């Protein structure tokens, strides 16, 4: 199937799902997003061709991560979101995680630990309940890569 068509189908499917219904596995829904090599491709595969505002979200990471195997990433939003996606550009694939935000969560405050193979940047993209997209990008140094095992 052509990618464009596939994306179109995906969007149609989302439109049909009632807003209140949660429990959505993005891996099953958007398999292409997880194989995308670059952040831009992954965002496209996940949300389509979007224009994101550079506001509303914030990332908290250490400037220099001594251990690339477990980098704490804090994620916060000032806006209400439907979903939140975390990407980075130093591993073979870009996508790290996609969070579905429950409707009663007004401001997101999440933290997780991720692996990064080398120095790079982390991108956070949020899909607002108002239909807008928000984005923030932050770069950090990784002293010791985390994907070598």
């Amino acid at each position, binding site marked *: 199937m052509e990618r464009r068509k596939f994306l179109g189908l995906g969007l149609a499917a989302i439109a049909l799902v009632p807003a209140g219904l*949660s*429990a*959505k*596995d*993005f*891996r099953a829904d958007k398999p292409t997003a*997880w194989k995308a090599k670059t952040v831009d491709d992954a965002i496209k595969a996940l949300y389509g061709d979007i224009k994101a505002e550079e506001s509303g979200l914030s990332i908290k990471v250490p400037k220099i991560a001594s251990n690339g*195997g*477990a*980098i*704490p990433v804090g994620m916060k939003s000032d806006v209400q979101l439907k979903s939140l996606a975390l990407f*980075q550009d130093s*591993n*073979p*694939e870009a*996508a*790290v*995680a*996609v*969070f*579905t935000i*429950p409707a*009663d*969560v*007004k401001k*997101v*405050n*999440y*933290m*997780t*630990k*991720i*692996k*990064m193979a080398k120095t790079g940047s982390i991108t956070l993209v949020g899909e607002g309940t108002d239909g807008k997209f928000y984005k923030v990008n932050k770069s950090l140094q990784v002293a010791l890569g*985390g*994907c*070598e*095992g």
Partner: protein
Amino acid sequence: MANMKIKAKVKGDTLKCKIQAKHDMITYNIAKKKGVDANFITYMTGKIGDRIVFEASTSQFLSKNPIIKFEAPSAGIKKGDELTMYWKDLSGKEVTEAKKIKGVK
């Protein structure tokens, strides 16, 4: 508590949760080097009763034994309620564990 550590506490109008899943999170790169199958957590939910408080689809790039912290509104949580965490990995293994929420008056 073999597969997960769960901490859930109500503070004011917020429910604060900290989860650590015991999982090796083997990426495709490591799997190739060691000659084992890649395996990592792909999907995770947190529920209180029927209400979903946390939901994430994840990839191989979460750290080994990944830690996740999240917050949700505490409205509607009663004394004795439990936070039920569930995850599924690439091999199809599913784990569900529950822990009582602390700090509810």
